[in-house]
């Protein structure tokens, strides 16, 4: 995707950064359009925070170029980048009250005090925190501090909002609430937002696009749905949710489909590019994409024979462990509205929708991922 200069808010062009010879970011390129919500997702140490700091200008790239608003910005000091940033620690100024914290970005620009008062009130309304102007950060709960940090970052009306794991210090319930709220604020202000997180849930809930990073590189960059359903490799697939990973061999290729075989198991899947018979593949099937039904009834003829080994009730769904011969598969199913769920030891039949099977070429190091 290439955007016109007026549309592009941020572009990274082959940006690299190393610390004491250890590469942290290697040749990262990406582009963000106005109003977009992009998430850098990856395990700790994958270079996502370093990438964010390169955008913020808190670090200088060793090579490559950071473009802001279409202009090269490598040497632009942070204070002239017109960015808002929410830090993982929120980085509130503890000696200033909420009003002064939020107003800081305006007071250093010598904006009139009436204008400052108006905009602080506006921001407190936006993050739903009216009436706390006079409190110090230490008198606020974590969730409130987080909102103050967001208000402080947004009051300057930045071209780009950077969020560095802003929810990781909150408890689970509050995190869920803030995810939805951040989404709302984003759509309300239409501010271009770059989020860094290691939480796949956050990424899926909030983003327009997700860039999955590993070892300083972007593995893939796409919409949450496509990244989740059609991951380009085993790492991305495993990082975003659970999957049954099966090493298979292609038995036959015909008309855009392949017949795959593993031990006694045979099933059809969409053919990956360049598939040929005898090739080894890794196949990923998400647990919720395996469909279970009883061996009696109208669908009795379809599917593969299996035995239920274990059934774990998890409230909203049931997690089954199935055995197909020697093969163990994880299946996630909604509890049946009428009738009983499968019990351990029961026989079942499994169907695998062709479109839900993702195949990757078997990679050398993949077995240990």
């Amino acid at each position: 995707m290439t955007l016109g200069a007026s549309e592009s808010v941020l572009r990274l062009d082959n940006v690299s950064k190393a610390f004491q010879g250890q590469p942290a970011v290697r040749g990262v390129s990406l582009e963000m359009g106005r109003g977009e919500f992009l998430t850098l997702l990856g395990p700790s140490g994958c270079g996502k925070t370093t990438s964010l700091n390169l955008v913020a200008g808190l670090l200088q790239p060793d090579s490559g170029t950071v473009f802001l608003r279409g202009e090269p910005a490598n040497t632009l000091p942070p204070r002239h980048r017109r960015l808002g940033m929410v830090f993982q620690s929120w980085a509130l100024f503890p000696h200033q009250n909420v009003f002064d914290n939020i107003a800081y970005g305006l007071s250093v620009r010598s904006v009139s005090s009436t204008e400052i008062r108006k905009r602080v009130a506006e921001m407190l309304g936006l993050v739903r925190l009216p009436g706390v102007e006079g409190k110090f950060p230490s008198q606020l709960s974590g969730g409130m501090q987080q909102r103050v940090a967001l208000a402080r970052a947004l009051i300057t009306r930045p071209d780009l909002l950077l969020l560095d794991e802003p929810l990781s210090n909150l408890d689970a319930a509050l995190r869920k609430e803030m995810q939805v709220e951040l989404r709302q604020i984003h759509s309300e202000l239409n501010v271009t937002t770059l989020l860094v997180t290691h939480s796949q849930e956050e990424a899926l809930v909030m983003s327009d696009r997700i860039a999955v990073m590993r070892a300083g590189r972007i593995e893939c960059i796409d919409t949450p749905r496509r990244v989740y359903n059609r991951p380009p490799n085993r790492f991305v697939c495993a990082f975003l949710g659970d999957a049954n990973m099966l090493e298979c061999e292609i038995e036959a290729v015909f008309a855009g489909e392949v017949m795959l075989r593993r031990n006694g198991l045979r099933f059809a899947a969409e053919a990956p590019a360049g598939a040929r018979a005898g090739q080894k593949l890794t196949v990923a099937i998400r647990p919720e994409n395996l469909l279970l039904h009883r061996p009696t009834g109208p669908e009795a003829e379809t599917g593969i024979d299996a035995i239920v080994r274990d059934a774990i009730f998890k409230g909203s769904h049931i997690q089954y462990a199935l055995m197909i011969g020697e093969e163990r598969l994880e299946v996630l199913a909604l509890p049946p509205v009428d009738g009983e769920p499968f019990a351990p030891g029961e026989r079942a039949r499994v169907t695998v929708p062709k479109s839900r099977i993702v195949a990757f070429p078997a990679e050398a190091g993949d077995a240990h991922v």
Partner: protein
Amino acid sequence: MSSPRGALRSAEDFARGRPMLVSLLLLAPVLLLLLLFFFAPLAELANLSTFAQQPTRQVPRPPHSLVNYVKILSDPFYLQVAATSVLVGGCTTIATLAIAYPIAFYVTRIAGWERTLISVACLLPIFVNVIVGILGWYILLLPYGLVQQVLSALGLVEGSLQLLRSFPALVVVLTYEHMPFAVLILVSSLQAVPIDKINAARLLGASTARIVANIIMPLTMPGLVASAILVFSLSASSYLTPILIGGQRIRVLPLMIFSYGTELLNWPLAAALAIVLLVIVVAITYLFAAAMNRLSKRGQWEMV
């Protein structure tokens, strides 16, 4: 995170669980030491300062009066000396902090051999005997000494230069003497300022000067106050440096006290001068700390 808190809690439990008597027993050695070697001599000094005349064999306990204090407070000469002492302490404090603060800030932002080098360079003066250090400066500042040679080589001065016995020279040497203490205190204080807060201010558009004034200084105020108090009280009551560098030209209270106590043998007046010096130093440090705490709203907020 959890282990220091856990340690703190157990220390509190420890204190709470002990009866009063045990706490008193634990404090007893230090209380006894303070009583014997600090408060008792201080009381004796205060007592001595109210004697109307020098105790003699014939009159070991002269009558009490405030004549010494009246003499000090009504004589412009003594007031001038007291003012000079305060001025020496104040100038030294300002000069020390102005130099130590940037050094300390720089030390917290570097690592490895560079940090070791600067830290050692800052601490080295502590390991040199005070008199040796002062005499080193003495030689540098002598007429036609090294400082003057450099200045005249650069064509900045001509003829003999009277650096020794001057007020600036005294402040320079006192600053050198107290720099390590200030740097040590300020480094630990600046170290506690999270880099995130500085970066947040940068991204919000603040210039470096504004960040120092709005963020770093308020957050390091306890360290600034502590080092200011230390440097002020040490330099205002310093005796060795004024006698060696200032000679009798710059009259400060410690010189007066020494001279009345040992040369003129007027112990009551020397004691009164010592009490005056003590009161001045305590009052100024207290007012300064209170003003700074009010300025930084200390106690109203906590670090987050």
